[in-house]
């Protein structure tokens, strides 16, 4: 076994030095296996599609772009290894990953090696609070979403709100943001608890929630559970309105819930490419559909595409693969870059600037309609 390890290691070294110069390597760290495999596989498809397009148009700085994917398995330890692997393969920058705690496990490794990291599905506030120079994210932050969510709840005029999360970092963070804001505004939180993701029957939770008599429910978890909640709520004959967090922006939600149960469901999300008038977005969708036959499964995967695009744009603009120059460009010079999910600029912490969140509503046909 050790022999194999050594051999492979030696081979990698040789490979890295021999072929290193002819391409520009961009790493993709994504959950290709494990519980978030569907997100990760989408990310890979999107980034590879964009890289292919870029190479067809002459590549970058006269070289081809090579995407090196590393599986983080949706687990911090594997993510740390994946990051090490990408770093040793001399990637200029790395895109990813999905899940804040997974991303966090890799942050220091990239930073210590001066490799740019552009996270896509990592919304925890603290990731950018550490002052890491090479860290960026195309996804918005939890506090931003919490603010928009509470705004929406206020607008609906709910006095008694139930908040349900799923105990993941992301959902709980959002739930806590929302709770704190709502309490300040004197809205009653009549129910606050967490479900266990991955189960099928949530009737026990719905029954309990129903007895708390909320005017509306804010569910901050993910679409598989949300679809089931909507469906089982409908079957229970309970007509409470639901507002979902941005992890619900997935067409499968409608399939799980059924259009009749999903109708009237509100959720928050950065705008999806389908809703953007820009040429970049519609071109991307067309190309994706052509190559893979479907539309992207989730907005988070699309955000990795944005990460790839801003990174390559910065390399192009600076004419360099030097991390300091690229980071500086991303921090200070990249302004209102036309991304797949709207315009992109970064602040000095590496957070995406601007109002990203919108409110969507599901109509009677099961379509996601952007609310004004």
């Amino acid at each position, binding site marked *: 076994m*050790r022999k194999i*390890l050594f051999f492979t290691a030696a081979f990698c070294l040789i490979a890295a030095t021999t072929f290193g110069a002819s391409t520009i390597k961009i790493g993709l760290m994504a959950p290709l296996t494990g519980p978030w495999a569907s997100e990760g596989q989408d990310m890979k498809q999107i980034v590879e599609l964009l890289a292919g397009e870029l190479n067809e148009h002459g590549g970058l700085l006269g070289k081809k772009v090579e995407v090196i994917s590393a599986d983080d398995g949706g687990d911090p330890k594997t993510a740390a290894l994946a990051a*090490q692997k990408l770093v040793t393969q001399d990637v200029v920058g790395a895109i990813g990953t999905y899940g804040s705690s997974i991303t966090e496990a890799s942050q220091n490794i990239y930073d210590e090696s001066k490799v740019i990291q552009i996270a896509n599905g990592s919304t925890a506030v603290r990731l950018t609070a550490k002052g890491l120079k090479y860290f960026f994210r195309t996804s918005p932050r939890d506090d931003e979403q919490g603010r928009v969510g509470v705004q929406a709840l206020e607008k609906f005029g709910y006095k008694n709100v139930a908040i349900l999360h799923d105990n993941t970092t992301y959902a*709980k963070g959002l739930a806590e943001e929302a709770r704190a804001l709502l309490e300040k505004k004197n809205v009653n939180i009549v129910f606050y608890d967490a479900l266990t993701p991955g189960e099928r029957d949530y009737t026990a939770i719905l029954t309990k929630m129903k007895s708390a008599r909320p005017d509306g429910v804010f569910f901050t978890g993910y679409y598989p559970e949300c679809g089931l909640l909507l469906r089982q709520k409908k079957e229970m004959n309970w007509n409470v309105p639901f507002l979902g967090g941005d992890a619900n922006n997935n067409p499968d939600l409608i399939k799980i819930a059924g259009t009749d149960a999903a109708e009237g469901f509100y959720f928050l999300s950065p705008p999806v490419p389908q809703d953007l008038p820009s040429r970049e977005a519609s071109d991307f969708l067309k190309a994706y559909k052509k190559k893979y036959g479907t539309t992207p499964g989730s907005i988070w995967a699309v955000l990795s595409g944005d990460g790839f695009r801003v990174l390559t744009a910065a390399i192009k603009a600076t004419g360099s693969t030097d991390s300091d120059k690229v980071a500086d460009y991303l921090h200070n010079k990249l302004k209102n870059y036309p991304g797949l999910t709207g315009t992109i600029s970064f602040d000095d912490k590496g957070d995406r600037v601007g109002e990203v969140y919108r409110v969507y509503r599901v109509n009677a046909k099961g379509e996601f309609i952007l609310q004004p």
Partner: protein
Amino acid sequence: MRDHSKIIYSTMTVLLAMSPLFLNKYWVDVLNNVGLYAILGLSLNIIVGHAGLFNLGHAAFYAVGAYTAAIFNTRFNIPVLWLLPLCALSAGLFAAIVMRPIIHLRGDYLCIVTIGLGEIVRIALINDIFGITQGANGIFGIDRPSIFGISIRRPHEFFYLIWGFVAVSVFFFHRLENSRFGRALNYLREDEVAAEGSGINVAHYKLACFVIGAAWAGMVGDIFASKMTIISPESFSFWESVLLFTLILLGGSASIPGVILGAFLIVGLPEVFRGIANARMLIFGGAMIAMMIFRTEGILPSRPRRYVLPDESSGESRA
């Protein structure tokens, strides 16, 4: 035969010790993970390999150690390496308390109870028990270890810390298994009733091996926490316990070289299969079945102990 294997083992050790000189960061970090799993495997081997107790919840003890380190380091700024004894103590004490009432359960009943224990701990961590574990976020900002003022941060530096710990563990566990204590565990694995009937306090030894195994895993938790600088409940899932259990049986139950080899397999195989991306775990699963069928006792099964016997005729002989 014995001398032959001695040569192999010492060559391996020298090769391993020198490997950071010619491996890149990534492979050194893979070796670091192997090392962590090797120590965890050795700590579980006392329970599963020697005492034959079905423990599929070892991640719970590991988690207690890691969280002890994280909490005391981030709140009271105690250097992580100083926390090693405390981590051992907390994990060992935890094992002693929770295993005490259930230690008499047999085989598969013990199995589900340890699984349950692992899940309870994980759920408790997620739900921010006592307000100290910070829920699913986990605890971040844990210090890197430092020895004599030198901070350990790069994989190559961690390599010597971790594999040094592996060496210490091998040293102690080797002594432990070749002693009255180690034998007692084997007796109860072979036949509980006969062990008790030979004067061995079976319940005591079952509990003791859990406590020692847990304490050792707790120390690994400390190193793990300081290596990752962030720990969260997902690092201590049921899957983690399954991996540890598997590595022991793949490598060779109750065999120290076997357990270390098992750690290489369980960490190394998926890394080697990285090239096949999506299918790597499929192959891994298939390999597990195949290895068990072709090497039922593991790849390096345990060997009988050797004793130096007084003998009237030749002075001494082997047994």
